[in-house]
């Protein structure tokens, strides 16, 4: 209520101020005109002459020039004065009406469209009285503050990283896991966490970097579930379907009966089979079935086939260029087709499209290097 009164007050005050001239008694005073300027210019000549800055002949010449301007200005002034200054009541009424109607109408319309008046009310008490008064965001902020003050406390990073993961802040999660590894040393759990965060960053693709992390995790703990799962996924994404199947079924065989993670593994297996049957156009890379099909074709057919795929990928990237690995695949594909010009153009496009983010640019360059 107070808020609305304030808005109303602002509107009325502005209106009143704008309408002031209409209320005042009409004074037809002509302030500042060019006649005054030229009079001043004449006085200046006298001053200059007095101070010895100009000689008499020059002063005279200037005086004539300025006087001419002065005469002209004075003439114009007289003409203007004979033009009766328009004090048409009707026009003034119209102007006042326009001001008084248009101003609040425009303001109200815009505020109705753009404003968030509910934000002006004191926030509902829920938040203030939340249990222990802490939201997840507050807790994160606290740990972040703690980390800032104690930048060498590896434990805090280890606490933060999974929270970031859950919030989908994969970039932060990658950073936190890296810090944890750096400060606390290698550990299967941390490496696997880092791998998962990297996969999250690329929306599900197991990059070379992520694979390295999982391999480290597996070396430290041969039973690391995420490492085994994602390495199988990596094999699948690379088109090595049999290897992937073996790895996943292996996981299932060794699983304790109550393991909660068997479900996702089964789902992955089922998905793989389903994909082999019906090609999923949304899949990111060349699909396993496609690759197998390509293997059976002769060279010409294969090139046509690859070209079709490349065109699809290129169209996709044109619509959404935010995909470093996709770009790298495209460049690589042009390379395979021997179209170096297009490969270079694609590289340039990629850098342009990813230019906003140094991280993504680096990922693109890495992926490109890995492919060579």
């Amino acid at each position: 209520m107070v808020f609305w009164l304030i808005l109303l007050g602002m509107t009325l005050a502005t209106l009143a101020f704008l309408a002031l001239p209409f209320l005042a008694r009409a004074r037809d005073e002509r302030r500042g005109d060019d006649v005054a300027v030229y009079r001043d210019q004449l006085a200046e000549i006298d001053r200059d002459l007095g101070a010895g800055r100009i000689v008499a002949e020059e002063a005279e010449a200037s005086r004539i020039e300025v006087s001419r301007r002065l005469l002209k200005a004075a003439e114009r002034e007289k003409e203007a004065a004979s033009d009766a200054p328009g004090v048409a009541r009707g026009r003034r009424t119209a102007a006042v009406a326009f001001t008084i109607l248009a101003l609040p109408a425009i303001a109200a319309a815009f505020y109705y469209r753009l404003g968030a008046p509910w934000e002006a009310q004191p926030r509902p008490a829920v938040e203030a009285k939340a249990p222990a008064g802490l939201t997840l965001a507050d807790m994160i902020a606290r740990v972040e503050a703690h980390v800032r003050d104690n930048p060498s406390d590896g434990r805090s990073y280890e606490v933060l990283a999974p929270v970031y993961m859950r919030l989908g802040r994969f970039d932060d999660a990658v950073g936190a896991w890296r810090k944890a590894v750096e400060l606390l040393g290698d550990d299967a759990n941390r490496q696997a966490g880092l791998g998962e965060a990297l996969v999250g960053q690329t929306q599900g693709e197991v990059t070379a970097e992520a694979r390295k992390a999982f391999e480290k995790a597996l070396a430290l703990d041969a039973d690391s579930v995420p490492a085994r799962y994602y390495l199988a996924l990596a094999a699948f994404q690379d088109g090595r379907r049999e290897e992937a199947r073996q790895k996943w079924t292996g996981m299932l065989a060794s699983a304790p009966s109550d393991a909660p993670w068997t479900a996702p593994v089964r789902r992955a297996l089922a998905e793989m089979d389903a994909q082999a049957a019906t090609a999923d156009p949304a899949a990111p890379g060349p699909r396993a079935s496609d690759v197998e099909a390509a293997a059976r074709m002769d060279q010409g057919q294969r090139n046509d086939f690859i070209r079709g795929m490349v065109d699809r990928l290129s169209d996709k990237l044109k619509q959404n260029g935010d995909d470093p690995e996709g770009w790298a695949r495209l460049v690589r594909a042009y390379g395979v087709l021997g179209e170096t010009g297009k490969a270079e153009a694609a590289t340039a496009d990629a850098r342009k499209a990813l230019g906003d983010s140094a991280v993504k640019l680096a990922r693109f360059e890495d992926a490109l290097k890995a492919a060579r």
Partner: protein
Amino acid sequence: MIPEIGHYALILALAVSLVQSVVPLVGARTRDPVLMDVGTKGAYAQFALMCVSFGALAAAYGQSDFSVAAVYENSHSMMPAIYKFTSLWGNHEGSMLLWVMILALFGALVAAFGANVPTSLKATVLAVQSWIAAFFYLFILVTSNPFMRLAVVPAQGRDLNPILQDPGLAIHPPLLYVGYVGFSISFSFAVAALIEGRIDAAWARWVRPWVLLAWIFLTLGIAMGSYWAYYTLGWGGWWFWDPVENASFMPWLAGTALLHSALVMEKREALKVWTILLAILTFSLSLIGTFIVRSGVLTSVHAFASDPARGVFILVILLLLIGGALALYAWRAPTLRQGGLFAPISREGALVLNNLLLSTACATVFVGTLYPLALEAVTGAKISVGAPFFNLTFAPLFVPILIATPFGPLLAWKRGDLAGASQRLMFAFLAGALGVLVAFALQGKPAVALAAIGLGFYVVAGSVAELIERVGLFRVPFTTAMNRAGGLPRSTWGTMFAHAGLGLTLIGIVCETAWGLETIGAYKPGDTIPIGGYELKYEGIAPRQGPNFTADVASFAVVAGGARIGIMEPSKRAFAARGMNTSEAALMTRGLGQLYVAIGDVNPDKTTTVRVYWKPFVLLIWIGGLFMAFGGTLSLSDRRLRVGAPKLARNRARAETPA
């Protein structure tokens, strides 16, 4: 509640600007003083409302109110208070709000100090000014609203881009914007004059202070921005010819030309048509600069195409304002009567030459800045037009400007005496020759640098020549000369300072580029780096904790002539919130030169990459800028009127008559 009040104030300002766009104009056409007065009141109201709006946003930043999207995106509760405030304009939304805030401020200034301007001209100017304001209020509200709220309030902000967390940023954009936006006044005056159909010497006088004011701030803003880039970007460059810099440099060149052509118009009523065109073009260049910087075309033409709302909006504003003004100009200009006549060799002629060269230089920068963008838009090829292009095209244009600079003030109006002027510049020529000799003795080569140093000395000495001439120093008794110096118009002093500043900047540039020293290498603690008579002893690197960053601070003891003269501490800062690093260079001023140290990464073998520069006389570059701005200020404070055709009094007898 506060952000909502600020939001509403902005909306109300838009409403006022729409009323002010129409009513005073009707008043001016019908000579109704009451309607015309609405312009003045509206300008005050807009300014007051913008103060409320800007203040509200500042309060939101101050309280780290992360329910406001812009605050969340660009602030952090741990930032020092000063950066909380400056992050207000360290981003698109906030900087546009600052832009219109300054626009409203100028409107109010015209309302307050425009009392010497005829009422109807003033009303029209304020209406035109209000058109510009209305466009930009709309732009902000529709495409870049700084008051947008977040439904879920985050606990912590995302921090300001670390590179912008610097005192330089605190002052640089406001100065630059005052310059940019200040030219809107000369634009409004030009359009108003075309509407009114009356353009004469008096118009030039009325518009001149506004041009000067904008020019002073733009000069300071550019100098400040250059110094900021010099010490934050970490490799000691002070001018990059990058499009953002060019965007501010183009209006400066055009504004400088305008400043000079308005002088001719004021004194002799000549160059009217050209001056009006320059007034329109100068602000158009400011707008184009805003478009280049704000639409995102710079990052990539494609980025612009994928989110075109902002860019297209500014483009439409550009077309309407610039196109409209130029159309009006094309329609009205042919009806203007030409003013006073003059010989080619005269003060007017010199100023025309100045204008020709400055506008050509400006066109060069314009092409160099926009051509790559246009090419990318059409063919998709990304090329960069860098320093080599500008050095090749810009330098040959500026050499004649510099040669002509000292001549201008020495030539008389109407018909000048070139031989006489050269005679009076004799000592400036000598100073130039002396400069070449000194530089040759100290450095020897390269020849181009020697010539440029000579040119710099000549410009500085030549700028004093007019003064010496006018007070009759060495020809009349010293006390008389001093008395006369006191009686000279401030604008004469202003000219001297501004022109000398140009020479000083040139000397600084030449010394820095030709004789600067640079050492890059990997050093271990304990190593000594010799450079230009100094020795830097690397003492080690240690972590240090800042408010919202951690830093690795390296420490170098500086030794000169066997004595330890100080410690330099360059550092690398890591900002956790954005995961970004910045490099903080360390500077040590010795005379007018500077030692400059920046560190890179610490290598695996415990060495650190260190870059050390010795930059002789580098400070002159910015001191020259300060001189120019100071000259402008002196000229601005000269409220007296000057009239056409006074030739210097050489008659000694007459000169000695007391005033």
